[in-house]
């Protein structure tokens, strides 16, 4: 979270074994020690720093430059064209549509991914027997690759042979064209996504629940507070920080959605589920326009920055 970018002030300025009181080390002078600490520090940083510069900072910068050029995947046309790519992207209805799809997915997936996770964790934490079994059931899908999840669900969503329509028809309901109906497809993807990833948030909630001191509940039940009362007056407030963090992590994760959509609908029907990451991918690798693709990446990054700042602002305000 950006808020952590603040310098670490609470780091004690002492050097182990040297500047700590009562621990004089006679042989080394202060400036030499400083020098040694400096090179040692950078030596320990160096391996990480090398990868960090090479595979994060450099691509970040070269991508920014690329977005200002007409670079294509095939030729070496990297003429500088200024902000033309950005101008084109802002006028591109497909870009806006894919951004809209991404935001829509984020909106409708985050709520169940947080609420269902909380409900499951709260239920399981009620002192149920066979904890391991529930954890196994709800968490194990998270261990699957997106391709496996997509294969499972594409099969269950199959219009004629799928399990879902079979159940609907046995209940006397009309079948649904799960992945082919523009008004249903995104929800179908959300259902698969909740099944796949809710276990992660569930675990985070479970860990947080187990950290709530039991005395709170004991005191509350002595005061005659029932289960629901305890949940709303003790559990939920105690989970506040965890919930804020899970929501933030979940929003950021959902904004990056690509895998399961690409694999289940390919962005269809008619582009109604195509997320912005897929549009970036297609502009670069099927449209051969790396420069344009990089520009959309940066617009997407800008959006993520804005959302993160907004979240930061809201949580700061609330905690103030």
């Amino acid at each position, binding site marked *: 979270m950006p808020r952590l970018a603040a310098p670490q002030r609470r780091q004690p300025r002492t050097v182990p074994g040297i500047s700590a009181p009562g621990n004089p080390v006679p042989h080394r002078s202060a400036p030499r020690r400083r020098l040694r600490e400096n090179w040692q520090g950078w030596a320990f940083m160096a391996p990480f720093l090398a990868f960090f510069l090479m595979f994060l900072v450099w691509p970040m910068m070269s991508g920014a430059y690329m977005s200002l050029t007409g670079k294509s995947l095939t030729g070496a046309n990297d003429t500088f064209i200024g902000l033309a790519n950005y101008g084109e992207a802002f006028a591109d209805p497909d870009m806006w549509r894919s951004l809209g799809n991404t935001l829509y997915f984020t909106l409708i997936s985050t709520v169940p991914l947080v609420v269902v996770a909380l409900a499951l964790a709260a239920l399981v934490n009620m002192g149920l027997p066979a904890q391991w079994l529930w*954890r196994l*059931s709800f968490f194990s899908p998270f*261990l699957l690759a997106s391709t496996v999840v997509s294969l499972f669900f594409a099969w269950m969503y199959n219009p004629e042979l799928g399990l879902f329509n079979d159940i609907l028809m046995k209940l006397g309901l009309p079948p649904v064209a799960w992945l082919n109906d523009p008004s249903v497809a995104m929800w179908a993807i959300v259902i698969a996504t909740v099944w796949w990833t809710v276990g992660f948030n569930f*675990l985070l909630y479970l860990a947080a629940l187990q950290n709530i001191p039991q005395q709170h509940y004991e005191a509350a039940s002595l005061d005659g507070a029932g289960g629901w009362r305890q949940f709303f007056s003790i559990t939920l407030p105690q989970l506040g920080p965890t919930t804020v963090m899970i929501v933030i992590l979940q929003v950021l994760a959902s904004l990056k959605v690509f895998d399961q959509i690409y694999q289940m609908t390919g962005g269809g029907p008619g582009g109604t589920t195509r997320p912005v990451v897929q549009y970036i991918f297609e502009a670069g690798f099927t449209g051969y326009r790396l420069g344009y693709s990089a520009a959309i990446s940066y617009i997407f990054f800008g959006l993520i920055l804005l959302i993160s700042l907004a979240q930061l602002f809201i949580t700061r305000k609330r905690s103030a």
Partner: protein
Amino acid sequence: MATQTLPRPAVQAGTAVAGRTSGRRRKMPLSRVVATAIVAVLAVAWLVPFAWAAVTALKTETEAAATPISWLPASGFTLDAFAKVLGSGNIPTWTFNSLFTSVAITAITLVISASAAYAISRIDFRGKNVMMGVIVASIIIPPPVLIIPLFQQMQSLNLIDTYWALILPQVIHPPMVFVLKKFFDQIPRELEEAALMDGAGRLRIFTTIVLPLSRPILAAVAIFVFIGAWNNFLWPFIATNENSLLTLPVGLQTIKSAYGIQYAQNMASALLAALPLIVVFLFFQRQIIKGVATTGLAGT
């Protein structure tokens, strides 16, 4: 094997409920009984995709594509689909690629993140606050933003379609540096001071004192990174085309398009791909859950 082990928890879910209802007489609160029942139903629902995939994979292609659909095929179950999928030889190759790259990514990530975290936590070098700030700020960068320039970079280095391209860009995990740093901060300084007095160097202190004391957090980070690497799709999908270099998730995607309508084989390969991590999970459940819960909180 998956087909035999996976549906089993669903059955046990039922028995767990039954066991609890009898405990009700011993002042088991009604709310807890109800909660157990609800959770059991949900758990069974959660396992349905596994079970349905297993049933399909055990059918013949004809049975799998037959309507009305059935949980028990008329002609009985068969291992045909599994045999065909394994016979094609792709799944073992892709499993090896996934395993090799994930282990390499995890190992490199651990080494470089732990030493960076140690420097930031313990060494008083100039610029360390800036470094910490930069690393933490970089958490905000979404990996998909980097795919185009990374592809370009790998292409100009001639690394596309090599293990290098799969491994190198996946070893930077800024949140993990932060998690490790927080853990190192808690290790008593006295331990290091004593070693320093005895004349041990930094590297020695790091490898013989700090790292051994940090086993739990190193395991947690390793688990988190490994699961992520094992399942990553977008980058490996872009970085490789060569069939013999595909990772399991990417390879599976090509099977899907190749066999379009071979439902039983599709489900068999999906289950085979799911198997390794599920087996690992069954063995290391406690550590994995702890690892994910600890490092998943990396944001705070």
